[in-house]
C-alpha cells in the first residue's frame, strides 16, 4: 500500500475513528469537541493531499474486500469524489466550531451522542464520495442513512420521532431501490465499478433491464436528492438542531443523493446508455418541476428553516438538471454547484441558527429590524441570498451560468427559462428577509451573535465570494470541477466563465440583474412602510404577482399528499385484510394445507400437459 493509498483509507476512516474517541470522552466536553475538531481538520487535510494525484491522472485506489468478482468494497480518490469530499470535510470544520457555540448556548442534551453521530455521518459521506463502485457507495450510503437518524430525532419530541420515522422510511426505501438496480446491473453485467464515461460491462444489458437499472437508481438516489415527489422527508427533518439541518440537510446527506445521481449518469451507466434508456427526458422534466415547485413551496413558508429546506430541494435539482443535460458545460455547472450551493446554503442555516440562539426567533415575519442589531450575521445572509439568486460575481452565478450554457448546448431553451424563473423566485423568498432585517423597525434588545457562531457564518459567506471571484485558483474547486468534465468528456468547455460571453449569456445576466433591481425596489418600499401596513402590502405583492402559481402549488401539495395517503391506505388495508385471513381455528389451518396440496398438484399437472 503506497502512502497515497493509506491517505485515502484514512480520509474515509479518520471520522469513524473519532467515534470511539468521542464515546470515551463523553463526559468531558472540551477534549470531546477537540476530537471532533481534530478529526474534521485531519479529514480535510487528507482529502486535499489526494488532489495532486487525482489531477495527475493516477488517483489513489484501495480495495478492502471482495465478495465476488466485480463486487468489492473499494475506494478511489478521483476528482468528482474529491470535489465532494473536500467541500464536505471543509464545511465540517466550520460546522464543528459552530456546533460548539450552538449546542452549548442552548444547553442541548445528549451532546456526546450528537458529536458522535456527526462524526459517523461525515465518515460515511467521505465513503460515499470516494467509493470506487456502486456496491461500496451503497454500503456507505446506508451507513449515512442510519447515522443521521439519531441527529434527526435529537430533540426527542413526538414531532422529532415522527420526522425520524418518515426519514428512515423514505431513505431506506430509496436504498432498497438502489439495491434492486445494483442487483440487476450486477446480475446481468457482472460489474459494479465506476468508470469515467460509463462502465463498459453494462453495454451488454438488454434494453428493459437497462431501463430498470436507470430508473431504479435515479429513484433511489432521488429520495436523498429530494426530487419531487420524493422530497417529503426533508422539510420534516428540519426539527433537527440547526447545524444538522445545515451541514447534513444542505451538504452531506442530500448531496450524497445528488452525487449518487452524478455517479450513476456519468460513471456507471455513462451518457450513451442514459440516453438509450430513455431516462434523460424524464429526469429533465422531474428536475425542472422540482426546481419550480419547491421554490413555490418556499415562497409560502413563514418558518425560516422550512423556507431554507424548500430552497434546498429546489437548488439540489439544479445539480440534477445539469447532470441530466449530459453536456460538458452542464456537467461543469452541476459539479461546481455542489460546492457553490453548499457554502451559500450553509451560510443561511448558520444565520438561522445564530438568530434562533440569540433572539429565539424562527419565523421570517419576526425578523424586522434584527439586521441593524446583528449586522455581521445578516450581512452574511444577504451575501448568500444574492448568491443563490444567481447574481454576479458570486459562486452560484458561475455554476448557474454553465448550467444555462449547457441547456443552450442541448437545445433546451425552455430549461433556461426555468432557471431564470427560479432565480426570480429565489429573490422573492430570500430578499424580503434581508430588507426586513435591515430596513424595517424592530426590537432593540438584540445583540450580535457570539463569536463561535459568527465566525463560521462570516467564513462561509467569504467562501461564497471567493468561489465566485476566485475560479482561476490553481487546484481550487473550479479546477477540480473542470477536471471532472475533462475526465468524462475529454474536453473542457470555456476555460474562463468571464472570458467569452455569448449574446444569450449577456441577456440572461442583464435579466437577472434587472429582476433583482425590481424586486429589491419593491421590497424596500414595503419594508419602509409603517409596521401595521407591512403585512398587507407584502401579501399584496405576493398575491398579485404569483396568485395562480401559489394556489397551484398548494393544489400540487394536496395532490401529493392525497397520492401518499392513498398508497399508504392501500398498503395498510392490504395488511389488515391479510391479517383477517389469519385464524386461530385449527380446522381452518388444515384447510391451508389442503389448499397448498391442490395448488401444488395443479401446477405440476400443468407442467405435464
Amino acid at each position, binding site marked *: 500500500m503506497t502512502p497515497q493509498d493509506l491517505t485515502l483509507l484514512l480520509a474515509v476512516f479518520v471520522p469513524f475513528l473519532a467515534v470511539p474517541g468521542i464515546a470515551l470522552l463523553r463526559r468531558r466536553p472540551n477534549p470531546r469537541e477537540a476530537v471532533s475538531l481534530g478529526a474534521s481538520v485531519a479529514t480535510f487535510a487528507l482529502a486535499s493531499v489526494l488532489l495532486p494525484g487525482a489531477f495527475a491522472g493516477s488517483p489513489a485506489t484501495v480495495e478492502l474486500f471482495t465478495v465476488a468478482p466485480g463486487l468489492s468494497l473499494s475506494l478511489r480518490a478521483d476528482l468528482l469524489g474529491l470535489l465532494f469530499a473536500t467541500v464536505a470535510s471543509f464545511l465540517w470544520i466550520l460546522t464543528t466550531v459552530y456546533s460548539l457555540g450552538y449546542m452549548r448556548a442552548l444547553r442541548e442534551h445528549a451532546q456526546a451522542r450528537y458529536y458522535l453521530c456527526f462524526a459517523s455521518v461525515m465518515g460515511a459521506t467521505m465513503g460515499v464520495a470516494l467509493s470506487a463502485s456502486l456496491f461500496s457507495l451503497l454500503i456507505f450510503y*446506508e*451507513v449515512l442513512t442510519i447515522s443521521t437518524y439519531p441527529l434527526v430525532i435529537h430533540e426527542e419530541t413526538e414531532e422529532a420521532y415522527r420526522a*425520524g420515522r418518515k426519514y428512515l*422510511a423514505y431513505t431506506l426505501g430509496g436504498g432498497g431501490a438502489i439495491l434492486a438496480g445494483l442487483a440487476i446491473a450486477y*446480475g446481468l453485467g457482472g460489474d459494479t465499478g465506476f468508470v469515467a464515461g460509463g462502465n463498459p460491462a453494462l453495454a451488454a444489458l438488454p434494453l428493459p433491464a437497462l431501463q430498470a437499472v436507470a430508473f431504479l437508481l435515479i429513484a433511489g438516489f432521488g429520495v436523498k436528492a429530494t426530487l419531487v415527489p420524493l422530497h417529503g422527508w426533508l422539510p420534516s427533518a428540519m426539527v433537527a438542531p440547526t447545524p444538522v439541518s445545515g451541514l447534513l440537510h444542505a451538504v452531506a446527506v442530500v448531496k450524497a443523493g445528488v452525487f449518487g445521481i452524478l455517479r450513476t449518469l456519468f460513471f456507471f451507466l455513462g451518457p450513451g446508455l442514459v440516453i438509450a434508456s430513455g431516462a434523460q427526458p424524464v429526469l429533465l422534466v422531474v428536475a425542472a418541476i422540482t426546481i419550480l415547485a419547491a421554490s413555490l413551496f418556499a415562497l409560502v413558508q413563514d418558518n425560516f428553516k422550512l423556507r431554507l429546506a424548500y430552497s434546498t430541494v429546489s437548488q439540489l435539482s439544479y445539480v440534477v438538471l445539469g447532470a441530466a443535460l449530459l453536456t460538458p458545460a452542464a456537467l461543469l455547472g452541476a459539479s461546481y454547484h455542489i460546492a457553490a450551493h453548499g457554502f451559500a446554503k450553509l451560510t443561511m442555516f448558520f444565520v438561522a441558527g445564530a438568530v434562533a440562539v440569540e433572539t429565539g426567533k424562527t419565523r421570517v415575519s419576526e425578523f424586522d429590524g434584527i439586521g441593524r442589531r446583528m449586522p455581521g450575521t445578516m450581512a452574511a445572509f444577504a451575501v448568500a441570498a444574492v448568491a443563490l439568486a444567481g447574481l454576479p460575481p458570486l459562486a452560484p452565478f458561475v455554476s448557474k451560468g454553465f448550467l444555462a450554457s449547457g441547456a443552450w448546448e442541448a437545445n433546451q431553451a425552455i430549461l433556461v427559462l426555468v432557471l431564470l424563473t427560479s432565480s426570480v423566485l429565489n429573490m422573492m423568498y430570500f430578499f424580503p428577509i434581508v430588507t426586513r432585517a435591515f430596513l424595517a423597525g424592530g426590537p432593540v434588545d438584540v445583540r450580535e451573535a457570539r463569536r463561535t457562531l459568527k465566525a463560521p457564518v462570516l467564513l462561509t459567506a467569504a467562501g461564497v465570494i471567493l468561489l465566485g471571484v476566485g475560479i482561476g485558483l490553481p487546484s481550487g474547486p473550479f479546477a477540480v470541477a473542470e477536471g471532472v468534465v475533462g475526465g468524462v468528456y475529454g474536453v473542457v468547455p470555456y476555460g474562463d466563465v468571464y472570458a467569452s460571453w455569448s449574446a444569450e449569456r449577456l441577456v440572461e445576466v442583464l435579466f437577472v440583474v434587472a429582476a433583482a433591481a425590481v424586486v429589491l425596489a419593491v421590497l424596500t418600499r414595503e419594508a419602509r412602510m409603517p409596521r401595521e401596513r407591512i403585512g398587507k402590502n407584502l401579501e399584496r405583492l405576493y398575491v398579485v404577482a404569483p396568485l395562480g402559481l401559489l394556489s397551484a402549488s398548494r393544489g400540487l401539495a394536496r395532490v401529493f399528499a392525497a397520492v401518499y395517503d392513498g398508497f399508504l391506505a392501500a398498503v395498510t388495508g392490504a*395488511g389488515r385484510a391479510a*391479517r383477517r385471513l389469519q385464524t386461530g381455528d385449527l380446522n381452518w389451518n388444515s384447510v391451508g394445507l389442503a389448499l397448498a396440496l391442490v395448488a401444488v398438484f395443479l*401446477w*405440476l399437472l400443468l407442467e405435464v400437459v
Partner: protein
Amino acid sequence: MPLAWNALPALPLLLLGGGAIATFLAGRVSRTRGGDASAATACLFLGLAFVSFLLLGDPGGNPATYAPVGEATLRADGLGVFLGLVATGLGAVVAAYSFVYMRGHPGRPTYAALLLLLVAGLAGIGLAGDLFNLYAFFELMALSSYALVAFHRTPEAVEAGMKYLVMSAAGSLVALVGIGLAYLAGGTLDLGALAGTAMPREIALLSAGLLIAGFGVKAAIVPMHTWLPDAHAAAPSGISAMLSGIVIQGGLLAMVRALAVFGVGSTAAFSYGLLLAFLAVLTMTVGNLIAMHQRDIKRMLAYSSIAQMGYILLGFGIGFEFGIAIAFAGAVFHILNHALMKGGAFLAAGMLQQRFGTRDLTALRGAGRRMPAAGLSFAVFALGLAGVPPTAGFLSKLFLATGAVQAGGALGVFLVVALIANSILSLAYYVPAMTGLLAGDGPKERTRTSWGLTVPVVVLVGLVFLFGMWPDLALRVVDPAVRVLLGGG
C-alpha cells in the same frame, strides 16, 4: 484408525444424543444446583458438537460417509456441515442465554435436554444420506420442538403447541407418503443413488408435490404457515430463537434435500423450481403484510420469519429452476444470516419481555432506552433483517436479488421487484418497532441487565457485522453447500 475416522459423521450426533442424556442426568445430581449443572452441560456438549462439525470441515468432492445399519447412511457433505454448524452454533448461544433466562424454572434439565435433542434432529437432517434418516431426524426435531413450544404450560402455550403438533404431524404424514413414492419409483432410499435414477414421470411428480406440501408445513410456506405465529410467540424466547432461526429452515432444507433427487437446473426431470419461486413471492408478501399490523413484538418477529422464509425459498426456487449458483448462495447465506439476526432479535425481545413483563410494542415504548443492550441489539437485527448494509443481511439479499435477475427476462425483473418491494414493505414494521423501542420520551432510568443475557446477544450482533464486512469467513461454509446443491458434491 480408519474405522474411527470413517465414523466421524456420527460424532456430532453422538455428542448431541449423549449430551441430552448427560444433561438430564446432571440435573438430577443436586436439588439446588441441578439446573445450573444441566445448563452448563448443555452448553458444553453443544460447543463440542460445533467443534466436531468444524472438524468435518469442507469435505470437497468426497464427503465422509458412514453407514452404521443397512442402507441408512450418514454423509457429511457441504450442506450437512453448513446446517450442523448453524444449528449447533445458534444452539450453543441459546443454551448460554437460557442459563440465566430459565434460571429458577423447575424444568430446566428437561428444557436443556430437549434443546439438545432439537439440535440433534437438525444436525441429523443435514447429515442424513438417505430419505429414511432424513425423515427420522426430521421427526426427532419436530417432536422435541412440540414439547418446547408448550414448555411453559400456560393455556396460550398449550394451545399453540397443540396446533403446531396437529399441523406439523399432518405435514409429516404427507411428506412420508412422498418419500414412500420416491422409494417405490427409485428402488432406493439413498439420496445420491436416487438422484441418478430415472423415475416414472407421474410418480416423480406426485412425490415432489407431496414433499413440497409436506415439508412446506414445517417451512411455513404460505398457505401452510398458520401455526407458526402462535408457536413462535408462545415458546420461551430462547426456543423462539431456535424455531425461527433454524428449525423452519431445517424443514426447508429437508425439502430441498429431498427435492434435489429430481435434478437441478437443466438436468431436472420436470420443473418444480418455478413453483417454489412463486410460492416464495406469495409467502414473503403475506408474511410482510400481516407483520405490519402486529402489536406483539414476538408475533411480529414470527410473521417476519415467514416473510424471510419467502426470501430463502425464492433463492432455492430459482436455483433449482435455472441452476444459478448465486441464487443458491444467497439462500444458504441468508439462512445463516437469518439465524443470527432473527435468533438475536428473539433473544433481545426475550430480555425486554422478562424485564418489563410484556410483549406489547406500545407498552415497550422506550424500553430499549432503559435496557440499551437489548434495544440497540434489536435495532441492529431489525436493520439486518431489512437488508441494510453493512450488516450481513444486506449481502445475502443482494445475492438473492442478483440470482433472481439471472433468471432472465421479464421473470427475472418481476422476481427482483417482488423481492425488493417486499423488503421495502418490511420497513413498515421494522422501523416503527425499532424507533419505538429506542424512543426516549418514557422513564429514563436504566435497568440492570445480567451479563449472561447480554453477552450471547452481543456476540450475535458482532457476527452480523462481521459477516457483513468480511463475508469470506461465512462464504467458506456457504460455498461447499452451494456446490452440493448444484450437484457437484
